[in-house]
């Protein structure tokens, strides 16, 4: 009875205020509910990012596709034809395209979200909205351009499936949305972590450029995992993207060494990255205007 009374008076004094601004928002308050309220804004931003990028261009959205087709073609020429790196018996073009499609999505997500604070300092300095809305919009708008690229990949894939029959897709394909989600989560988590750190030390922005360049070689994109000597394979398996990429290739092309346990590792990594990323991001959002 007594406890209930206290509860009630507590409610009376608190419920009248819609917003209470305190010095520091607790780190465990992710503000997800508020994020949901702002979903309209996120959708508009996704649109803005996607549309505005290719206004006043002749080829328009084709620019989402052209770079990846060209780079996959060049990879085929150099790594497969000149350097004779094996692609585990799958058509080289398709092999590189599969790797590129997923990798480009990841690296685009990472580089877009990592600039959240530095690029949007102006807008952050003037209006309030849940800051996480921005990186989420980046992830989603990149998802649209990813699906454009993925459709092109599917077109090539269907061609090889029908005319060359060199590939053996299987039911692991159903796991594709999960794989995509994992890539998005890792990209978002690491991206916002870097963006939070960048508010104080710009060094991380530079570090990211180098990291992405090296990351591409530390992920089996231009070579299959099976070509890596046994004793070095564990290094590649530390990379959370390796299992995702290998599973993706296995599902669509049918050749790869798949290990379900390493996929679990990727999932745990994605969750941790996201969790730590959001905590750092929320801390930075409170103070970044005073430091940037």
């Amino acid at each position, binding site marked *: 009875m007594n406890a209930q009374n206290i509860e009630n008076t507590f409610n009376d004094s608190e419920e009248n205020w819609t917003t*209470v*601004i305190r010095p520091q928002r607790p780190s465990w308050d992710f503000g997800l509910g508020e994020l949901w309220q702002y979903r*309209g804004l996120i959708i508009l931003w996704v649109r803005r990012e996607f549309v505005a990028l290719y*206004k006043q261009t002749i080829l328009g959205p084709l620019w989402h596709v052209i770079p990846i087709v060209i780079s996959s073609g060049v990879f085929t020429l150099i790594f497969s034809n000149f350097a004779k790196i094996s692609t585990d018996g799958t058509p080289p073009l398709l092999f590189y395209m599969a790797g590129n499609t997923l990798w480009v999505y990841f690296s685009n997500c990472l580089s877009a979200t990592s600039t959240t604070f530095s690029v949007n300092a102006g807008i952050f300095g003037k209006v309030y909205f849940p800051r996480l809305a921005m990186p989420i919009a980046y992830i989603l708008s990149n998802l649209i351009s990813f699906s454009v690229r993925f459709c092109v990949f599917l077109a090539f894939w269907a061609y090889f499936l029908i005319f060359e029959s060199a590939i053996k897709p299987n039911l692991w394909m159903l796991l594709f949305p999960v794989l995509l989600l994992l890539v998005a989560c890792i990209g978002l988590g690491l991206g916002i972590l870097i963006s939070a750190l960048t508010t104080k030390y710009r060094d991380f922005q530079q570090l990211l450029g180098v990291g992405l360049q090296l990351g591409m070689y530390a992920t089996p994109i231009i070579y299959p995992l099976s070509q890596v000597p046994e004793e070095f394979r564990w290094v590649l398996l530390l990379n959370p993207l390796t299992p995702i990429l290998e599973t993706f290739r296995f599902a669509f092309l049918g050749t790869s060494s798949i290990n379900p346990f390493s996929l679990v590792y990727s999932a745990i990594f994605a969750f941790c990255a996201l969790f730590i990323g959001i905590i750092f991001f929320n801390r930075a959002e*409170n103070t970044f205007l005073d430091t940037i």
Partner: protein
Amino acid sequence: MSDIMLSIENVSKMYNLGEINTTTYYHDIRRWWAGLHRITGHVDDVHQHNTVSDTIWALKDVSFCVKQGEVIGIMGRNGAGKSTLLKILSRVTAPTLGILKVRGRITSLLEVGTGFHPELSGRENVFLNGSLLGMNRSEVSRKFDEIINFSGVEKFIDTPVKHYSSGMYVRLAFSVAAHLESEVIIVDEVLAVGDTNFQKKCLQKIRDMAVQGRTVLFVSHSLGTLAELCEKSILLEDGKVKSIGETEKIINDYLAKDNQGANADVFFELKQNSKSAVAFLRASITDMVGTVKTEVSVLEEFKIRLEVFIRRPQNEIDIAFRVKNQFGLSVFVSSCADKKIVTEKSLGVHTLTANIPPHFLSPGKYYVTIAAHLPLQEVYDFHEDVLSFEVVEYGSSMSLYKGSDVGAVLVDLPWSIS
């Protein structure tokens, strides 16, 4: 007490000064260590325990309440903490100490047009900006026609805003913000935009908001607008609330610098190392025989005397002053440039005198700003509101209207009857 919309309790904000470089890594670690032992509580406690001296308190223990339907003016000189307060209110930055409570939504028109994307059309930007300011899609749709009508850019609504003139851009942006349905609105200097007609429309809009029962916080340097719009005002000084009360009284506080009252004779120190071509030595208000006066009668002619030291004479040097009244309205500006009295031969100390005719300034307090400059090129010396004096009433016909608005100046027009 339920009509209090906004309650600000002991809000303080600390900024760290100094650059961020390699040494800050070390500071960070030290601060983190200090943080483990930090005693939370009053500002001074934290200040004492903060061994790093490169910090500044932009706001100190600011507390006030705002009721529903009030239009509150916030004034203060540059650096008084106005912008910091607004930033905290609009949740752009967090306070270091203290709590703010708001009933209902709070939106700020800190700078209109934030988030406008140049490549998108006016229509798309209205939706984008609307949702950025916290409206949902159906709200914007419902108000869309009203917004467009108010802005007056109907014809170009489907043109990318990069082709807009700056006036159209700002008008559209203000319209979006003005049609928000939030309960508390913060307006910061947005009225400095657009033509006079649009400014009037905006002022009317703000008045309407108050009538609808919405609460408006209005920040402006234009004391005239503040006096017109706000019944209550808050004066900030050095991060603290100096006074709260009726706008007219607060404006007087604001202008009565350091509370010294009238100051009709001011000497300036000549800096030894200054290389400025012209420097003021003394400024004063005197009667016709040269006695310094802080009060002059409406019926009396008086002088503004400026003593200057001209180090490098030039034909183009201009020495001028501006007279402001107690509402901050600039009544007139007078410059010696037209008279061609400063020439390339006027090296050394000179006294310039301007006679203010009788029956010209209406009774009230006045403030004089003085400046010496090379027009459009260089300002040599500048002192804002450095002199103050009062024009008083000694039994002229004007005394009948004491306290009522007789205009900034009295004009003796040649009337006739036929």
